[in-house]
């Protein structure tokens, strides 16, 4: 039996993408927080240290740290290591600009907390143009 949960939110960057979810409750740092060559989180005390978001639907509270955030995620697009989509809660200039230049579908301002609904490994379809996220739990795939 397959059950799908639907989440609604606001488009940050348009487009449609799907992929496996990578979820963290830690904010993500760009410059000094990721290695754009591999899309890996490198921040020393981050819960996803050593894990790559390349091709994943990255679900996280928001951005922190250096103003190099957008440039580092810009590089992930050019190097082919960008996330498939980004879903986040807290809007800042770092993440807005970073999402724009990554050019992957991105959404925020959800009707429910994506960090509570989505778990790493779930299959997530993001339609940022329509403002809809469909979540299929890992156990149901």
């Amino acid at each position, binding site marked *: 039996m397959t059950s799908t949960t639907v989440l609604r939110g*606001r488009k*940050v*960057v348009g487009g449609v993408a799907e992929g496996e979810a990578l979820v963290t409750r830690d*904010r993500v740092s760009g410059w*000094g*927080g990721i290695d754009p060559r591999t899309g890996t989180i*490198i*921040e*020393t*005390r981050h819960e996803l240290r050593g894990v790559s978001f390349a091709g994943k639907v990255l679900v996280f509270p*928001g*951005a*922190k*740290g*250096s*103003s*190099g*955030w*957008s*440039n580092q995620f*810009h*590089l992930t697009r*050019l190097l082919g290591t960008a996330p498939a989509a980004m879903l986040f809660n*807290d*809007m*800042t*200039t*770092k993440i*807005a*600009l*970073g*999402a*724009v*230049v990554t050019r992957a579908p*991105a959404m925020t301002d959800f009707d429910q907390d994506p960090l509570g609904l989505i778990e790493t490994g779930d299959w997530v379809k993001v339609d940022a143009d329509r403002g809809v996220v469909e979540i299929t739990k890992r156990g149901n795939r």
Partner: protein
Amino acid sequence: MRLNDDEQAMRDGRDGDAVALAMDLLVRYGEALGAERLVDTNNVCGTVSATTPFMRDYAVQKGGMDAVFSEFNLDSDRVVEIPPAKVYTTHLQLGFDPRQGERMGIADEVIRFYQKGEAYTAGHGIQLANTCTPYQVGNVPTRGEHCAWMESSAVIYCNSVLGGRTNTEGRESTGAAMLTGKIPDWGYHLDENRFGSHLVELDMEVESTFEWGLLGYHIGEIVQERVPVLVGRGGRFAKVPNLQRLKHFGAAASSSGGVEMYHLVGVTPEAMTVEQAFGRNRPVQTIRYGLAERQLAWEKLNSTATDHQVDYVMLGCPHYNIEQIWEACKLLEGRKVHTNTALWIFTPRAIKALADQNGYTKIIEDAGAVLMSDSCSAMSRAMPPGTKVAALDSAKHAHYLPAIMGVQAWFGTTADCIDAACTGRWNGRLA
């Protein structure tokens, strides 16, 4: 987003392709934010440099510095000719010190390419300050001035200490701002977002630069991207912190968290009282800071270090000002850096010139240390060969360097660091 006639004309190509692309990016960015309009700015701090091998190769293959600017400053797939900056623009730090290429292990061809790029930058009317601390070399925004600054440690200083108004911009948005004189009117450009969110009550006096670094690191991790309001012990700051202390405090708070603005009640310009600092907001949380919290911050900052033999000591994150160089010289004069250890100190070029004039560069060099400019180890990924253990007097650098370079890092006072440089051993501890 609503554009006025002038902005719409820029978007429609009145001022050429590059300006039209810049306006297109500002609209995409503004809509992503949920901004309603743009605001005029005549103070941009950003970077247009190509100081990594990747960027140099990109430039060589795609059509020079205009190609770098088109992709990395305008998010354009198409290479366009870039006109000079329309508004006052200051260049931030680089990927190396072009006069220390050999010591930093930078290939000659990368240096030569940079020198070409430097002429491009100056030729486009961008001030070659080459520092993360533009406010230390003459770019000091006035209260209420709308700015478009990159560099998290400079942004927090601009907003909090100077009362200038900027969000943490990025390479692309500052590129668009320098060609248009516009930036989204969002976040810290607006009065209502500048009020405090968290109340921080200090249970101890915080005086030295080291102590301000610990405090900033602790608070940043708790408040993340919100606006802390700090009240000194007994309701006032008995010792008013100076530039270097608030520079370190802000750099730390914007590393462990994303703090872009804070208030010190009775000290910073938008917080003469607690009521003024919070405006209509009520504190979402009250945080106390005393010896236990200080200990915790120190432990986190030293969590990567175990080996007491120190290979490398770096000072100058954010870039040292002349007061700090003078202090370092007093600690260093008459001593020698240990044969197994290197000491590099980073400062803006303009302050290096003053240090040369004052004789400080000679004191540093006579001790076997080096005064460098334009960059730092985290930006350049350059350290003395074989470095496994570093010692730092910057909480920001202790946060980033182990992640970026895979080294152990000790965090301590400037005196601890200079002792480590001269003895080759880390003896710092939380006194």
